């Protein structure tokens, strides 16, 4: 069971109050993009054992989307942050580094 803190309303709630929204920081490829890019956007998702970045929605709550950095092995949540960003904030990356030195995830490290 994950405990997540919604950065939009401040609620610290358990997993069933939220809805997972899949991988974070996807770059979208739509009409006009190459078939390979479109394919990767649709199907080539990260499925790491360890540090992971996801989108979540406070479905049974304020209804807002946000991002979460967590560990898929330990279920530790390193932190949650605004949905209005293209990359994890430095503060979140520092928190991950403190626990998992040398981590990397897509282009982030």
């Amino acid at each position, binding site marked *: 069971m994950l405990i997540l803190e919604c950065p*939009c*309303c*401040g*609620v610290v*709630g*358990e997993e*069933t*109050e939220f809805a997972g929204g899949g991988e974070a920081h996807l770059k979208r490829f739509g009409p006009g993009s190459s078939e390979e890019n479109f394919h990767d956007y649709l199907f080539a998702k990260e499925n790491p054992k360890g540090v992971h970045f996801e989108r979540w929605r406070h*479905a*049974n*709550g*304020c*209804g*807002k989307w946000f991002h979460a950095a967590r560990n898929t092995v330990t279920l530790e949540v390193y932190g949650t942050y605004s949905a209005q960003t293209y990359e994890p904030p430095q503060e979140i990356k520092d928190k991950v580094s403190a626990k998992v030195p040398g981590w990397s995830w897509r282009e982030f490290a």
Partner: protein
Amino acid sequence: MSKAVSALQGASYQGYVTVEELGLRGMITLRGDLASAKLKSAVKVAAGVAVPKQRKVSLDGDVGVAWMSPDELLVMVPYEGVEGAIASIDKTLKGQHYLAVNVSDARAVFELRGDAAAEVIAKLCPVDMAPGQFGPGDFRRSRMAQVPAAFWMVDETTIRIVCFRSVADYVFKLLKDAAEPGGEVGHFG
């Protein structure tokens, strides 16, 4: 015009906590910039109370305003007063980016009364209801068993709950079950 009725028409249950559906209640969803002076004044004019802080409710008897999300409030007024309240909001916020909608008939409101009111909520919602963690004036949107619900504490022994009208019967049954004599937990003392 047909005669409006609430979902359960005031049904009540006397358990170790009293459960009562409160009948027709006026409710307005108000979305906009909660920090703007115009919106604050629109709320004051329409409901007579201030815009509540995050996860709080401003109450004056049956009238009140609840914090739903960073850009949404629930304005609670008498059922007959909804049209007037919306008209006054529209007037104050004219030209602003906002939304005010009458949701009265899309909701049901329940009240729990009794020393163990918080315990009944604790049985049904993943929320820390311990004294000191949730008190009078606190407002929370969460999940009640399988459906979304929001609730607020009026005083230590009174909690009100709002849910979608379509699940009013389900929520009433949940509350009755949780309030059934013999089911006392007593964890909160």
